């Protein structure tokens, strides 16, 4: 497989900042991959995406998109990518069709025509097709103002795909959408991906959106904390543990020591285990238990843990 995104030692320090917003990160994304950048607010996600899409200059490092250098061939990079911004980028005064038409002309797909009726037949049939997919045949010629948040996002995706980009960048596309709109937007994106095999580069702080990705890159304080498939990350970071307690806590502790188990004593006692051993541990405990709970953390827990670790390392 060919790497469509190559990032080597990328550093970005904003003017007047005393820290790097993006601090020496390297990664690559294969063609057709669904790649997710996951991290809390201020982690460096939007900064990275802005550099990758040529709207922000980097401090140092190397970035290649679809074989083109972002500095030397920025226009070719732009031609090959589609972007869904964090803030909506539709013109509210224009109709849905005008928004799409203007985009198509800027990307050199069609010649300029002042009205829809003067546009080539090929364009018209494509628009009608897209309107059908989105279910907006009736509203196609209405101003965007009248559209719902979810509808606007879908329209932005349709628009960003019209020039058939090799990579589609989505910067927190579902922020501010209600759960139903989020779900339907997501389904649409999955279907688009199946059809066109577009590479997807997503940034999000919603974990569930990252679980469908081929690979997840967790970023915090401008550094890559973890990079791997969601299952890998989950496996590596989420160890099962049991929570125990007894009225005779000292006896419980000595029993655990006898079994050579490591534990953490807080309000109760936390014992890390492999899932196979849970039964053995329970069988080995003779003292009557007042608390017994088995915990298997979600990816969310793993993520929060990573973010916490990152904080400690950097002193807050």
């Amino acid at each position: 497989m060919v790497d469509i995104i190559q990032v080597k030692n990328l550093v970005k320090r904003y003017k007047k900042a005393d820290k790097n917003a993006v601090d020496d990160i390297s990664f690559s994304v294969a063609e057709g991959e669904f790649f997710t950048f996951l991290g809390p607010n201020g982690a460096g996600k939007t900064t990275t995406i802005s550099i990758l899409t040529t709207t922000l200059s980097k401090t140092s490092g190397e970035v290649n998109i679809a074989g083109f250098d972002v500095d030397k061939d920025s226009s070719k990079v732009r031609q090959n990518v589609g972007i869904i911004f964090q803030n909506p980028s539709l013109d509210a005064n224009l109709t849905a069709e005008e928004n799409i038409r203007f985009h198509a002309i800027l990307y050199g797909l069609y010649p300029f025509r002042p009205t829809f009726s003067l546009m080539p037949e090929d364009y018209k049939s494509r628009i009608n097709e897209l309107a059908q997919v989105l279910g907006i045949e009736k509203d196609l010629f209405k101003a965007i103002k009248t559209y719902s948040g979810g509808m606007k996002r879908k329209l932005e995706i349709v628009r960003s795909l019209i020039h058939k980009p090799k990579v589609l960048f989505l910067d927190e596309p579902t922020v501010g959408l209600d759960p139903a709109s989020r779900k339907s937007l997501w389904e649409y994106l999955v279907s688009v991906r199946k059809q066109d095999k577009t590479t997807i580069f997503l940034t999000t702080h919603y974990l569930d959106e990252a679980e469908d990705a081929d690979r997840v890159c967790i970023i915090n304080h401008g550094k890559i904390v973890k990079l791997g498939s969601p299952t890998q990350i989950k496996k590596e970071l989420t160890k099962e543990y049991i929570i125990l307690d007894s009225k005779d806590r000292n006896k419980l502790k000595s029993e655990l020591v006898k079994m050579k188990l490591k534990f953490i004593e807080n309000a109760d006692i936390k014992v890390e285990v492999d899932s196979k051993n849970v039964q053995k541990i329970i069988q080995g405990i003779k003292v009557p238990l007042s608390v017994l709970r088995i915990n298997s953390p979600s990816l969310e827990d793993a993520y929060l843990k990573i973010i916490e670790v990152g904080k400690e390392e950097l002193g807050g």
Partner: protein
Amino acid sequence: MRELNAIFTIALRDFTKLIRDRVRLLMSLVFPLIFIGIFGGSFQSISKQLGFDPLPFVFTGVFAQVLFQSTASGIISLIEDRENDFSQEIFVSPISRYTIIFGKILGETLVSYTQVIAVVVMSIIFGVSLSPSTILVLLVAGLVPALFGGAFGTLVLANLGSQRSANQLFPFLIFPQFFLSGIFTPIKELPPILLVFSRLAPMTYAVDFIRSIFYLGKPEYSKIVVFDPLTDFAIMAILFVIFLTSGTYLFVKNERNR
């Protein structure tokens, strides 16, 4: 060809926005009424001292000023919308940055023409005698101040960080030019300091250019026109190129080097 298509697209968008914004459209018609009606009308009483009719004088001044200022402030609106709408979309498209600025200037020129047509109508109502051919010549000549204002706006835009600083600084850059460029009062003779500033104000050449064409062959020409059409045009052409290239260069550089 593609860049030309993009220029038209960006320009049409600006114009469409104006047409669909009723309040803005109405506002752009009210201003000429104030300028021509109140200023022109109130100067009528001193026309004997001036030695010429102040109404056509104010009309030609406002005509140039509206084109210059409306295009300039329109360009500065790029700051406002690069944050929140279609402009980010324009900036990530694979077209040249000069195309974007030029499309925007052309669009804002179209917008300023709706205003300048209101100026013409208002002036006729207030009694300025204008033949159809004069109107036509002025509308064609008006392209020069409009494009020039756009280039001026680009340079201002490039040096402003935010919408807030734009709102604070722009009036400071524009209002002195109202008087320095002689929209309402003659500037042929001025005290030395004002004279220097008046010749430094870009709007001066826009106003003088329109007047030099309007008064060409009329007896008041020598009393009113400071330079001549060719000098005004040449100065504006040179400044246009300087403002536009340096402005676009700085704007793009500041945009990316944050």
